[in-house]
């Protein structure tokens, strides 16, 4: 272990954690004002119980030696999770970073979430106001604030997933800068050619999403 790896992973973990309140702003701005607090709390409130459950149980079930499907309870209550090396960083920091990823999700999480969300939407059905009047984002500046903070957080998420400071982290960092930038540039051109102007909400969405690995 060296302090450079540890320092980067401490910062990366904090960056990833910021993505949860960032999502709260992103989604909160997209809904109508009467549901703003509820939507933001859906993300925000998870910071408490999810972190506690992760530390007490989830980390062990995910990472303690077990069978190919699920881990064991060897690390339950953070037993045996201390400052010993886990790759390039202390085990305790590894647990924190993986816990932060747990909030923000990943490639597998997003495919899973997309499918679950589609099925849930089909089962529950449209809102009662759907088709009766326009349902518009109530706070576009919130959406843009959230999108900006998400992009910032993705640097910690993607470059931090190297679990050390080095060339792999640098490559992921460069991709996290350039992939959303290229998407943003492409979108603004498409929007300009289509409607003669560049709109804010889709621009924010395109900036926030493509950094996902």
């Amino acid at each position, binding site marked *: 272990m060296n302090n450079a790896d540890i320092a980067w992973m401490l910062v990366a973990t904090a960056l990833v954690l910021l993505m949860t309140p960032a999502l709260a702003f992103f989604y909160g701005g997209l809904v109508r004002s*009467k549901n703003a*607090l*509820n939507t933001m709390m859906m993300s925000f409130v998870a910071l408490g119980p999810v972190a506690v459950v992760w530390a007490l149980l989830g980390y062990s079930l995910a990472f303690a030696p077990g069978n190919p499907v699920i881990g064991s309870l060897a690390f339950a209550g953070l037993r045996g999770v201390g400052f010993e090396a886990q790759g390039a960083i202390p085990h305790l920091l590894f647990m924190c970073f993986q816990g932060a990823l747990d909030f923000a999700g990943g490639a597998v999480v997003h*495919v899973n979430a997309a499918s679950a969300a589609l099925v849930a939407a089909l089962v*529950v059905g449209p809102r009662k106001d759907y088709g009766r009047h326009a349902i518009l984002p109530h706070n576009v500046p919130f959406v843009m604030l959230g999108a900006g903070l998400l992009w910032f957080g993705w640097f910690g998420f993607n470059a931090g997933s190297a679990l050390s400071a080095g060339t792999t982290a640098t490559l992921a960092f460069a991709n996290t800068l350039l992939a959303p930038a290229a998407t943003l540039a492409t979108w603004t051109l498409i929007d300009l050619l289509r409607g003669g102007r560049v709109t804010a909400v889709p621009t924010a969405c395109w900036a926030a999403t493509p950094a996902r690995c």
Partner: protein
Amino acid sequence: MLTQFASVLIVLAYSGGMTFVLLKLLSLVMPLRLGERHEGLGLDVTDHGEEAYTHGDGAILVKPKEFSMAGGRL
């Protein structure tokens, strides 16, 4: 590449199917939708007793018992 494509399809089918089953099971013990009035008022007031935006008088506070969380009574 083909393996990745297959894994995405499998995850789509698995989590889509499981979500459907879980929602159907859940609907046996609680309603999946809010009542009409509950949905119309918005969840900030009904479930949190707070408003996101106020006009100088401060956020209103609604006592929890005036609304049921599951939305069945509204």
